[in-house]
């Protein structure tokens, strides 16, 4: 789960991390009011679930409340990489002396959490890792002992820095780690972590994402989810308990198992088609789940036809076939379907489909070719 900068900063503030003064606004008038209250030069920052907003013109400075209203007018409603901006964060503009980077995430290769710190803040950390890896220090934290003082020392003494900054950085590391663990974050990142001209260390941005598997134990985070930011079909899929990702092609794809569905997308692409979505019905899907999946995929107006790729282990072919036949009856489908059914109860399943006059294929390759031919016009 992804949250906005202003929400991430709110979490940081609760933990006692210093952040610039400011508030979120949904209208230009509100933005002006906040700027007036702050009484300083402000930054008006688009709140949107995508990176690169600065380059896209989503961050603007304003010298007065009136100017803040004008800038907010420009930013609210703006489109950044396909997402509409609904909110702006209005906060005190800061005179930056130095920009640093601090982040904590899972190091998948090592199987530990890792603290990353760099003196090259304000830019994409991956770019730093590629071009100047010597400017990043990574400290792995033994998961069973947790964060110890020597981990913090390794971060703070990695680069030349004043005594005051070192001390402030140590507090940031400790607090960010506490937040990362307490809220089950998948990433907690402050980029840039700034040192101001008057010597304060502040979190000028905050990127906090959460482990979806752990959300059940954080009801307090639920309120932070912004459904308006998500694709409506993806929201609907989530409610139905389906793993669905919308893509931009025209071949609807439904299968069981993430790997198999990914493989099916690849295959459709290989034979010249473009998938409209990823949909994994999961293991042991019932006829009802299959019917729901079909209905969901077909509610995307770009879909010209649907390919089912099922390799049954715990999923039963006859159950899937029943769901498809039921779907064709209820949904009044006028688009081509091609079904590839293998594994558990495949014979029974194929019989149900052929009795209903639905096209089947023996292999994934054959199925992909058929659906691509049927949807090409």
């Amino acid at each position, binding site marked *: 789960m992804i949250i906005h900068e202003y929400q991430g900063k709110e979490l940081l503030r609760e933990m006692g991390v210093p952040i610039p003064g400011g508030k979120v606004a949904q209208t230009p008038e509100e933005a002006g009011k906040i700027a007036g209250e702050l009484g300083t030069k402000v930054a008006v920052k688009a709140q949107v679930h995508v990176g690169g907003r600065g380059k896209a013109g989503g961050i603007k400075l304003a010298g007065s409340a009136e100017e803040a209203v004008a800038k907010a007018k420009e930013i609210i409603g703006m489109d950044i990489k396909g997402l509409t901006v609904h909110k702006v964060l209005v906060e005190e503009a800061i005179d930056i002396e130095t920009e640093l980077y601090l982040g904590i995430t899972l190091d998948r290769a090592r199987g530990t959490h890792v603290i990353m710190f760099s003196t090259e803040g304000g830019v994409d950390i991956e770019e730093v890792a590629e071009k100047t890896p010597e400017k990043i220090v990574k400290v792995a934290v033994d998961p069973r002992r947790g964060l110890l003082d020597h981990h913090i020392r390794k971060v703070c003494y990695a680069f030349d820095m004043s005594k005051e900054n070192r001390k402030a950085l140590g507090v940031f590391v400790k607090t960010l780690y506490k937040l990362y663990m307490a809220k089950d974050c998948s990433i907690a990142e402050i980029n840039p972590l700034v040192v101001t001209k008057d010597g304060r260390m502040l979190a000028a941005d905050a990127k906090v994402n959460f482990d979806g598997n752990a959300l059940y134990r954080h009801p307090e985070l639920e309120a932070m989810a912004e459904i308006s930011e998500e694709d409506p079909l993806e929201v609907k899929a989530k409610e139905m308990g389906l793993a669905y990702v919308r893509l931009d092609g025209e071949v609807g794809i439904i299968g069981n198992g993430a790997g198999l569905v990914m*493989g099916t997308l690849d295959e459709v692409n290989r034979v010249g088609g473009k998938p409209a979505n*990823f949909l994994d019905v999961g293991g042991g899907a019932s006829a009802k789940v299959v019917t729901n999946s079909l209905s969901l995929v077909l509610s995307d107006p770009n879909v010209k036809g649907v390919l089912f790729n099922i390799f049954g282990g715990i999923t039963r072919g006859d159950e899937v076939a029943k769901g498809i036949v039921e779907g064709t009856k209820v949904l009044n489908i006028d688009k081509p379907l091609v079904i590839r059914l293998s594994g558990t109860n495949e014979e029974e399943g194929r019989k149900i489909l052929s009795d209903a006059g639905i096209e089947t294929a023996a292999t994934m390759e054959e199925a992909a070719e058929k659906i691509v031919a049927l949807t090409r016009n």
Partner: protein
Amino acid sequence: MSILIDKNTKVLVQGITGKEGSFHAQQMIDYGTKVVGGVTPGKGGQTHLGVPVFNTVEEAVKATGADASIVFVPAPFAADATSEAIEAGLKVVCCITEGVPINDMVPVRAQAIEAGCRLVGPNCPGLITPGECKIGIMPGNIFSSGPVGLISRSGTLTYQAVDALTRAGFGQSTCVGIGGDPILGTYFKDCLPHFAKDEKTKMVVLIGEIGGSAEEEAAALVKELGIPAVAMIAGRTAPPGKQMGHAGAIVSGSAGTAAAKVKAFEDAGVAVPETMQGLIEEVTKLLGAPVAN
């Protein structure tokens, strides 16, 4: 011969009285796996599916001499159950459960490494030595015994590959479904040395997907061990930043792309076919035409 598990492996089922645990325990018994007992706290002393149920793994191990366990416990409790099995001294522990929080699993993975336990999963289909022992949820009937070792991050893609191999006459020594989560007990690189030492295994098939760097590490090790291998990568056309079903299947920035994984394998001299037909062709190149048995 095989790796990790064979006909003598004695298996416990944690969560045996639950719906999933019960169903798959029966399937495992029907396959011929030596299921010696189950664990469900509060149901110790009962008999389920013809085997004794215990309250704790420790008790179960004492009474049955089990050496492996499979975990069907719901996600909020799965890491704890897995940790219990490692602490009880089991050498192979397989966690099937999907949706285990990362912060729960990270310390358990560390515990398994320290204890010398081969933890497989979570969010995986399990492992199978065809004709001998199945510790997992895969359909047993598609597997056949033979010279191909298989390691995979995906369940159903494994079934598809195994089905193609079996139909083409290439049996399998052991198949390990390592799982689709960002944090796993076993990666490709942990299985490869076992396969390299196994006399029955003549080659390895690796089925990877986008996200992480397990495939890149595997490619380097394949080369080092000099074991003949073929690899497949799912998600070549997946868009960056989108999680494709598996929690671990996501291209973040420039990390975890299919292109990097394909390149790593090809640089290591490992062919990366795009179709099942291509897979069979590459396996045939390495092993020759299958001998009818």
